[in-house]
């Protein structure tokens, strides 16, 4: 939706703490976001959703990533996410869920942790 304060503030914060951020802007279509993300070879795709459509968006996101047979990229969703939906999102396959109120430093920590987990999974698979 059009409320991008969260997305902008988190993007800025991540950039300041050493992440390279590619900000794709408002009203993105999930298919296009995933396409660009894979082209840019990102580590994490993050969505900011305040409108209550996070479960549907999560399903689409995971579907699009699987469709492209990408095992590398991690996913994160932040915004207005009711308590009950946090575990639902994880079940759908979202790696990091950051509902409103999550401190900025914790967002960065959780994202970094998801990358380490990925590395470890890769190592375990060798």
């Amino acid at each position: 939706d059009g409320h991008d304060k969260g997305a902008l503030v988190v993007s800025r914060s991540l950039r300041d703490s050493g992440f390279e951020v590619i900000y794709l802007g408002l009203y993105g279509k999930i298919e296009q976001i995933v396409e660009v993300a894979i082209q840019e070879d990102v580590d994490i795709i993050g969505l900011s959703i305040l409108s209550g459509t996070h479960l549907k968006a999560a399903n689409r996101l995971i579907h699009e990533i699987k469709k492209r047979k990408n095992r590398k990229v991690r996913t994160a969703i932040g915004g207005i996410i009711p308590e009950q939906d946090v575990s639902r999102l994880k079940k759908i396959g979202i790696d990091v869920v950051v509902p409103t109120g999550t401190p900025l430093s914790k967002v960065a920590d959780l994202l970094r942790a998801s990358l380490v987990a990925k590395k470890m999974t890769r190592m375990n698979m060798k």
Partner: protein
Amino acid sequence: MGSSKNNGKDNDFKTDSGIPLKPVYSEKDIDDQNLGLPGKPPFTRGPYESMYRGRLWTMRQYSGMGDAAESNRRYKYLLAQGQTGLSVAFDLPTQLGYDSDEVDAQDDVGVVGVAISSLEDMERLFEGIPIGQVSTHLNINATAPIIFAMYLAMAENRGLNFSQLRGTLQNDVLKEFLARKAFIFPPGPSVRLSCDIVQYAIDKVPEFNPISITGFHVKEMGASSIQEVAFCLSDAIAYCDELIARGLEFDRFAPNLSFHFACGRDFFEEIAKFRAARRVWAELAFDRYHAKKDESARLRFFSGGSGAVLPAQEPLNNIVRSSLQCLAAVLGGAQSIHVMAYDEAHSIPTEDSVRICLRTQQIIALESGVTKTVDPIGGSYYVEALTDELQVLIQEKMDQIERDWGGMIPAVVNGFPQREVIHRAYQQEKDIESGKRVVVGLNKYTTDSKSSIRIQRTNEKAALLQKRRVKQLKKRRNAAKAKQALEKVRLAALDAHQNMIPVLIEAVKSYATVGEITTALKDVFGTYKDPGLIL
């Protein structure tokens, strides 16, 4: 003077917007001359002489969900609970010009507001509600011309005279580019459409406020109260200049302009903000626009409680926060108030949570006694000093926009206000993180227990029904008539001097939909892409 024992701690006492505060204020801090009386310029003490003694503010909770029938039920509930004016929340597809049955809209139908794709939907929305008697606020911007046309067509179908219709259209596209971001077309055509509505309405729908020039979303985005009012009134200047360029006299349209501000958490600063805003506008009206009528200089506003300061954690605390906001709006002289529900950070309100919002307004109105005299806060040393200070700072910011950018439209196109606001938003988040900015229950006095509140869930069934309904309408209607009407819309759009409202009324009557009309307009006007600044 501060005591030296404070060791510079006096610097910590600032308003939310950063104005340094003295330990105590006294009669030396008031400039009596600016005070005046309520109902008289510069309206510091209120836009009307009798204010709430004569008539209470309108209790107007923003509301909308699912399909028209579901929202209709909620509106009837609210009216029965004492709501005195309706305020329609539209879903994102409707706001962004998509029909409920379009693929692009599929996940968002009826989620954050009501889905309205056609005149039939509009009529269903107001089924059994006497629109000739109830005042309605339509919170719609980029597609305001279409929605307004539907509202008028509905009135015609009911045999009502347009002069009987009371209400407001938000219709403020400039703030969309700046903060709210539900824009469609580029700035030029957007302002044209906005002004087409104003021009049409002051002639044909005189009891309607055809625009509600809005600072609310700017404040919610992270702006200070100074920036909020400065950017809002600078937007107002842009609209006024456009209307005057069309040949309208300021006194002809100014009395019908209305404004919309947020009410944040700094209690006295918000009260002073509203008073300062009235003063700045009055000076603007008389000095810049040479207003000949007091009504042209009288700023009337709707106060929306700030949702940005209502955390998800310990949600019931938000009832307290919202009550303070409501009281500040009342002491600040609002004409219309929306109170944020305690579950704002979780979902759109339930019946229970929105009822508490109404009760908050009713308790303040009928039990607290603050409405028994006009402007009870007037003459407070602190509030008057703060009002004076805010007026100066707001004016300075407005002058900066004029001087450095040549007005609000160039400033917004170049991202100046957006950068200022997001910079402040980021700083505020860091202050919450460090604990410098206290949010009780979030970063101070926290519990581990999770909130177990019931939240409003999207009505998936209603969304599905709505999608089917729109599909069926497109099959049922006279396709040739709709097509013809859409062609007229396209031609009218091409003519910059033609007011689009009559042609839109015709189009909605032929059951051309929100999506189809928007597509026709996009073909002519193009679309706007947000530059996506991070700083």
